[in-house]
């Protein structure tokens, strides 16, 4: 079988790339290792409950009349209408530190006002920072890495405000520990603060269904439970793709969303001196709690809470199984849905150490999951009404789970800190899209697939 393009991975970026290629009559096949699509943004069921992985909220929400933002751009590229995603906007979110809280909605002026109320001495500095952010071309594929900590602290002189700005932006997409590349910072700042959060009523399933249907409608082929064994190279090209089931297929171009290093490890003649990035270290534990009532009934109406329990925010791999000193509390119910969700859900995300989790097995792994869940809950109920008596079902996934289902080294969902922005590898017909190309979040991932397909295959 000979394809114009093979795409490795049926996540957001792979599916978006696939739609572009199939729409323009390329013969394209997406290979997905697992039985279901989604990759880092997938879904599962436990005891009749439907859960999402990845997606807390879709970022980049803009009103329908805004046309030049990432979300409408990608919808046009995919020939989809925004209604297809069935998005409802968040109620309110908050960055919660011991001394201060900054709330934000999908109205950017509200956030600017919050900064002014809480940090009156910083508002002029903040406005100057905004000017720099708005003038920055974060989508340039050629920009050199710049420390956003340095840039932000050249404008803002109150360290607490700096920490509070970084907390949500890092949690929602930084592959780098303790700092972010300026381009990534600007992408996240715009997608979270300037644009905003929304969710489909059916969660990530809605988005994935729309993408898969569109892809198939355009004539694309999707093979699930179809892992790649080896990318066989000859000279400067990938010559064929050997599948885990023994089949061998051939394509002019290969786009891989498996991650940069993960893709390089598939090469038949990997020369490690050619590797141009290091493995990501950031991983997470997530606790999903099903409640017997809507969180709003207990007085919790916040969609996403980013918390840190001291004035200094640490973003990096912890020395312990999990770090509960900061985290994200997501309540999928607290979006303005026309109808309520079937059940109350609270999700808690904390940074976690892959190596420590990976050493655990059997009963000890289970015991530690329970212990960490209790520790996470204990910290969270200091910030939201104590809902522990309302929990009817819990599920916990760890860095080990993320590694198992996504293949990402170290269970690091944000991949390598050294992004491959132009998607090129040392091989002429092998390209990287998705997380390791460097556009972040669900919208970023789809844009990544689209722009890499446009740049390397269609043009």
């Amino acid at each position, binding site marked *: 079988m000979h394809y114009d393009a093979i795409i490795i991975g049926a996540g957001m970026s792979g599916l978006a790339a696939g739609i572009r290629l199939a*729409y323009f009559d390329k013969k394209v096949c997406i290979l997905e290792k697992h039985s279901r699509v989604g990759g880092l943004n997938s879904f599962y069921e436990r005891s009749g409950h439907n859960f999402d992985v990845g997606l807390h909220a879709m970022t980049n929400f803009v009103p329908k009349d805004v046309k030049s933002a990432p979300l409408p751009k990608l919808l*046009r590229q995919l*020939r989809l209408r925004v209604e297809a995603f069935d998005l409802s906007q968040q109620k309110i979110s908050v960055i919660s530190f011991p001394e201060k809280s900054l709330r934000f909605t999908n109205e950017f002026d509200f956030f600017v006002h919050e900064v002014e109320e809480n940090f009156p001495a910083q508002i002029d500095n903040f406005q100057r920072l905004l000017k720099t952010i708005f003038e920055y071309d974060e989508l340039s594929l050629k920009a050199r890495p710049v420390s956003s900590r340095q840039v932000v602290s050249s404008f803002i002189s109150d360290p607490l405000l700096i920490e509070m700005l970084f907390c949500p932006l890092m949690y929602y997409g930084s592959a780098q520990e303790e700092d972010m590349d300026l381009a990534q910072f600007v992408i996240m700042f715009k997608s979270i603060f300037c644009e905003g959060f929304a969710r489909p009523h059916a969660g990530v399933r809605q988005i994935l269904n729309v993408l898969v249907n569109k892809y198939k409608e355009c004539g694309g082929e999707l093979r699930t439970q179809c892992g790649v064994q080896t990318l066989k190279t000859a000279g400067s090209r990938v010559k064929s793709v050997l599948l885990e089931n023994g089949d061998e297929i051939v394509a002019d171009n290969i786009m891989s969303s498996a991650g940069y290093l993960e893709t390089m490890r598939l090469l038949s003649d990997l020369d490690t001196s050619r590797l141009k990035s290091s493995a990501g270290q950031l991983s997470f534990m997530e606790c999903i709690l099903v409640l017997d009532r809507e969180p709003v009934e207990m007085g919790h109406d916040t969609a996403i809470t980013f918390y840190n329990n001291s004035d200094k925010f640490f973003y990096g791999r912890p020395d312990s199984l999990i770090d509960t000193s900061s985290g994200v509390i997501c309540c999928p119910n607290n979006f303005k849905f026309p109808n309520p969700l079937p059940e109350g859900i609270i999700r808690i995300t904390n940074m976690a150490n892959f190596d420590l989790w990976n050493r655990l097995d059997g009963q000890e792994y289970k015991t530690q999951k329970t212990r960490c869940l209790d520790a996470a809950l204990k910290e969270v109920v200091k910030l939201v009404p104590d809902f522990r008596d309302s929990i009817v079902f819990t599920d916990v996934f760890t860095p080990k789970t993320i590694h198992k289902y996504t293949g990402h080294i170290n269970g690091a969902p944000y991949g390598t800190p050294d992004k491959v922005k132009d998607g090129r590898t040392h091989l002429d017909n092998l390209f990287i899209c998705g997380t390791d190309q460097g556009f972040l979040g669900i919208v970023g991932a789809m844009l990544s697939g689209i722009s890499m397909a*446009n740049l390397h295959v269609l043009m």
Partner: protein
Amino acid sequence: MTREEIQSTILDVIAGIVPDEDLSNLKGDVRIRDQIELDSMDFLDIIMELRKRYGVEVPEEDYMELSTLDGSVVYLEPLMKDS
């Protein structure tokens, strides 16, 4: 295809890419991008749609010819007259 058919084809292609834009008052002699919101990705999609639907190849150096509706019709007429 006649000039009128080519013009309605172009409008149809644009409508497929930016379905929410009102194209009924589009002026023929003014840059399309000055009249409706169309970014460079959208513009490239017009060219790719023409290739997909009619096999018309527009080389990059000729992209300027397609900046207005009238210009597009004139440029495409010899390429699409047998479509």
